């Protein structure tokens, strides 16, 4: 569809609201068929970016091409080929589940007989066939989310934009959604999603950017990012909390020898625990106890995108 193959291409993209800069010069390329993520905490500028890509929010400056077109000139043509799942559901709660699909398809100029057929298929796909004639209002959060996804597919879009697809849902509803999104991806639909859950990013994204305060801090596949910005394993140490005493940071000097030996590469201090980045967690724990430190509890785990984010920004993703 475009010479260089990128479905979405941004260079130095900026969004300001008055004097406040929400998106501060980001570069993005999304290739056809991939699942691309924006991972970042609240306020990072993810939704602002998605709305610019969705051709509903004019960029303040920078270059943006979506499906090879310019959103400020060809908004309707771009939107005709996108599916959008916004951060908060905006279904029409006065009409039924099925009517939400039928009515929405009309905005894309699709004929009613085709829409009836498509609504049937989509409701099946999102497992809502038995609710077709019900009103939207009493549906659970997960069901509404699935209906919003079905609605986003009514025009058979080339790209689906999902802004925090599972925020606020219970674990089971999240897994149902992830599984549906995975199927979409297998069908070759390009997915662009935002999330502040690292497990979601790891589950769904082929490639992602870590976003913070309007900027992109790093880009790559989840595995690449973990390799680049974290060690293979993390040893988490908790110590007794003593009233009036400093937090876990007071144990950091005691860890110096362990770091010098090379058993631990880096130490991060959280309010309630220390994170020791190491190629081998069990070996690191032996080194720690060998040096005379006795944590209250310890845990060895694999590094995750959470650790990548901590490394890049000095903060945790969900606070």
């Amino acid at each position, binding site marked *: 569809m475009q010479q260089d193959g990128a479905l979405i291409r941004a260079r130095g993209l900026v969004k300001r609201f008055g004097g406040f800069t929400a998106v501060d010069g980001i570069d993005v390329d999304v290739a056809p068929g991939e699942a691309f993520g924006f991972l970042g905490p609240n306020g990072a500028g993810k939704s602002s970016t998605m709305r610019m890509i969705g051709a509903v929010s004019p960029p303040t400056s920078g270059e943006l091409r979506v499906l090879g077109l310019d959103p400020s000139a060809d908004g309707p043509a771009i939107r005709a080929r996108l599916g959008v799942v916004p951060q908060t559901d*905006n279904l*029409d*709660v*006065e009409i039924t589940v099925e009517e939400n699909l039928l009515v929405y398809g009309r*905005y894309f100029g699709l004929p009613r007989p085709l829409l009836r057929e498509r609504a049937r298929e989509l409701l099946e796909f999102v497992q809502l066939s038995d609710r077709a004639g019900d009103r939207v209002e009493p549906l659970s959060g997960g069901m509404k989310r699935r209906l919003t996804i079905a609605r986003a597919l009514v025009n058979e879009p080339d790209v689906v934009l999902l802004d925090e697809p599972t925020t606020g849902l219970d674990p089971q509803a999240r897994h149902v959604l992830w599984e549906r999104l995975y199927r979409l991806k297998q069908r070759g639909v390009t997915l662009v999603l935002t999330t502040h859950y690292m497990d979601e990013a790891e589950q769904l994204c082929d490639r992602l950017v870590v976003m913070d305060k309007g900027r992109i801090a790093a880009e790559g596949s989840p595995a690449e990012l973990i390799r680049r910005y974290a060690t293979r394993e993390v040893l988490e140490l908790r110590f007794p909390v003593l009233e009036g005493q400093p937090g876990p940071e007071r144990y950091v000097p005691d860890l110096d020898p362990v770091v010098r030996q090379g058993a631990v590469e880096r130490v991060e201090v959280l309010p309630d625990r220390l994170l020791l980045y190491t190629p081998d967690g069990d070996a690191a724990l032996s080194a720690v106890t060998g040096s005379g430190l006795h944590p209250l509890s310890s845990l060895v785990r694999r590094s995750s995108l959470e650790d990548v984010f901590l490394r890049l920004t000095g903060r945790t993703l969900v606070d």
Partner: protein
Amino acid sequence: MAARDAIISPGALAVAEQRLTAYRHFWRSSLVSSVLEPALFLAAMGLTLGVLVDRGTGLPDGVAYLSFLAPGLLAAAAMQLGSFESTYPVLGAIKWQKTYEAVLATPAGVRDLLVGHLLYVAFRVGTSAALFLGVLVLFGAADSLLVLLALPAALLTGMAFAAPVTAFSATLENDPGFAALQRFGILPMFLFSGTFFPVAQLPAFFEAVAYATPLWHGVSLARGLALGTIEAGPALLHVGYLLLWSVVGAALAVRTFTRRLVT
């Protein structure tokens, strides 16, 4: 491209279709209430107060009070429905349900939202007015079928309110603004713009104010047509004035919608 640029574009029709789809779920109760209220006024004032008026000094030209009141109420009811349908439903679609956001994610644009909304309001005002007229004729409260000519006048009155109220609603953060609109705009017009008595009864200053309200023009047009007393000059003035409010209101609404929704 051409179809999309037309005022009544496919996008605008889709917006109206969405609203009609919802309306199919509650049309009975809505029609009943939008006809019942003017009918109650007509019964209460037309049949009781009207008798006193007709026995007393009466109206100019010896018009029966019921015949005087009916077209006035028709225009006033159009004002109320056109305004109301442009308050909560519009702010709700912008802010609470965010259904306008959903529409703007499709090829449709801000102008389609507005035109589709106004088409739907026109449908609502038109059908309510037609039903009210039907009731009038059935109950023998209309002494001439000329009263049917008041329908387009009522429709135009409804739009002269719907468009500017829509523009206003899109500037609000919350609903207290609607109470103010009702208290300081709609209700005083309902009472003092000629629905119930000729505005010549008002003190000179308030009479002049009444002439500036769109409702007075709507009432005068509807009444003049229904009674067959209107002349071309005043009729054109009324139509022009109501169109002015509709068109300027719609132009303002495009601006307030854009400011609110395209950020």
